[in-house]
């Protein structure tokens, strides 16, 4: 969270011709998400979640399109998107593994698990494997302290991790690819 500094003035935004927000997506937002809220801006988090679900991350062009759609400035959308840890502003691997590093997990062996995961995939936390399959990140408490150490593999929480369990999960996900 906290503060990100970037070279906004000189930054080149990568663009593609096809818009990220398809007609299908915008009509879904108009029919199902916007009516829930008193103003358009409140629909921003659900829409960011949905776009990230479709694209994998939030490219700047998509943020601009969302801004136009919600009648906001691009800066307002970026302001919100950059605040939350779960919104990725840069490409991530196909499978994002978030290892919990909070106190119950650290007391119950999170370091061994994270170390094993990183050495197996040969990356550091925050990095993506060269084949674009896995990203490993550390996360704060996942709300499953009774099953520490735990991690999120994509959207699925894996409890009571062991070295063997991690090996099996990585092998399975590598095989699926």
């Amino acid at each position, binding site marked *: *969270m*906290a*503060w990100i500094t970037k070279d906004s003035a000189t930054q080149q935004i990568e663009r593609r011709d096809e818009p990220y927000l398809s007609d299908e997506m915008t009509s879904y937002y108009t029919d199902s998400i916007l009516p*829930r809220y*008193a*103003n358009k*801006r*409140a*629909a*921003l*988090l*659900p829409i*960011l*979640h949905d776009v990230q679900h479709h694209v994998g991350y939030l490219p700047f062009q998509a943020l601009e399109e969302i801004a136009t759609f919600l009648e906001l400035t691009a800066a307002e959308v970026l*302001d*919100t998107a950059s*605040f*939350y*840890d*779960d*919104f990725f502003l840069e490409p991530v691997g196909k499978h994002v593994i*978030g290892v919990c*590093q*909070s*106190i*119950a997990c*650290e*007391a*119950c062996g999170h370091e061994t698990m994270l170390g094993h995961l990183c050495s197996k995939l040969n990356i550091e936390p925050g990095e993506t494997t060269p084949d674009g399959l896995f990203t490993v990140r550390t*996360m*704060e*408490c*996942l*709300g*499953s*302290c*009774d*099953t*520490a150490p735990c991690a*999120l593999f994509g*959207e*699925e*929480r894996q409890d009571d991790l062991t070295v063997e369990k991690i090996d099996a999960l990585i092998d399975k996900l590598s095989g699926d690819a």
Partner: protein
Amino acid sequence: MPMTEPVLTKRIPTYPYGDPKDRHAVWYDEYVKTGGYEALAAALEKEPAAIVDTVKDSNLRGRGGAGFPCGLKWTFLPKDYEGQRYLAVNSDESEPCTFKDRMLLDFDPHQLLEGIAITCWACGLQTAYIYIRGEYHEQAVTVQKAIDEAYKNGVFGKQGLMKGKVDFAVDCYLHRGAGAYVCGEETGLLESLEGKRGWPRIKPPFPAVAGLFGKPTIINNVETLACVPHIVQHGSEWFKSLGCESTIGGPPSYGTKLMGVSGHVNRPGVYECDLGFSLRTLIDEYCQGMKGGKKLKAIIPGGISMGVLTADQVDAELDFDIGRKNDLLGLGTACPTVLDEDTDMIMVARNITRFFKNESCGQCTPCREGSGWIYKILCRIEEGEGTTRDLDLLLEIAGSMGAMPGTTICGLADGNNWAVRTIINKFRDEFEARVKPSLVPVTMSV
């Protein structure tokens, strides 16, 4: 009178009343078959003001950490206000060590929805948003399915509550957060709901007067709302027969409480106990003692913000008096994390501070900068590079940040302050053994 049967965990098998292996998500049909939505039906027979009075009389205190009386909060809504009002349900359960609400969301989501419906009727709130933390992917799916079921069966929707039994319609939506602890702070939550960064607001105005979209808003925790149907159904006297009175002249701690135990115990998990339950019994009997027969060293009693208890304080009673009796910030979420003799308390302090450093929203300087500096100093001490002077520096920084000294907007810095101060004060020997003595220049005059 101690509890004899589970209340909140009636449909969620929990030791010692049932086996967690039998847990499954309870959907609408099963919920209704086991007495669900009877409290809502009873509530709709009553005047809304009478329900507020019952909850106020029950002395139900918020289960989200602060322990603010729920019924009193409801009375802060402006009277004679005709327009839109909101309920924001706080399921942004992000405090490390806390995982009690997750169990309610996982297995008995309709209990929460019934509480929401009753609260909306009692307080005249037309729209409820369940703000669920981004990391709870599976729980979001479960709750959304339960909301869809509730709409299909006429609990919510434009026809009026309970298939139009009353001419008052309530809408209920799920809103997912995206990984920010500070959005569990009530005004940070509102900002996040409005699609902004989760920066807590300066109060007043309080949310009950000007909250979500500037309208009167009530914000309650999941467990608090789950208590509401039981209070409406069985009455405030029944609720007051559970839990305990204060022994130090404070407000009472009535009702049962979900307590999620984690760390070095044989059987971690969520248990339901009376407020005032002995921490020792919880660890020794419910959790079957320390893992590997190790000795107890410290307990983080209710989320990391509250501070720590030493092994000598294991006889503490888990009620709202615990803070004043044991030099803690308070009961918090009543989810103890138990640490054994091999735990490095400097690691604990460093881990906790890293959390606050990462999760500080950056709005107030003492919190943003203070947490960063405390983290750096603790890392230095952990690596054996600290000096005695660093300990005093830590206490000074910690003691000067937080809403209580009046330097920050929300309580996040208080959490950091209490955790660091109590750990250093209660385990000072361990810290002193790790640091090098500060060299003081001595001048001699002959």
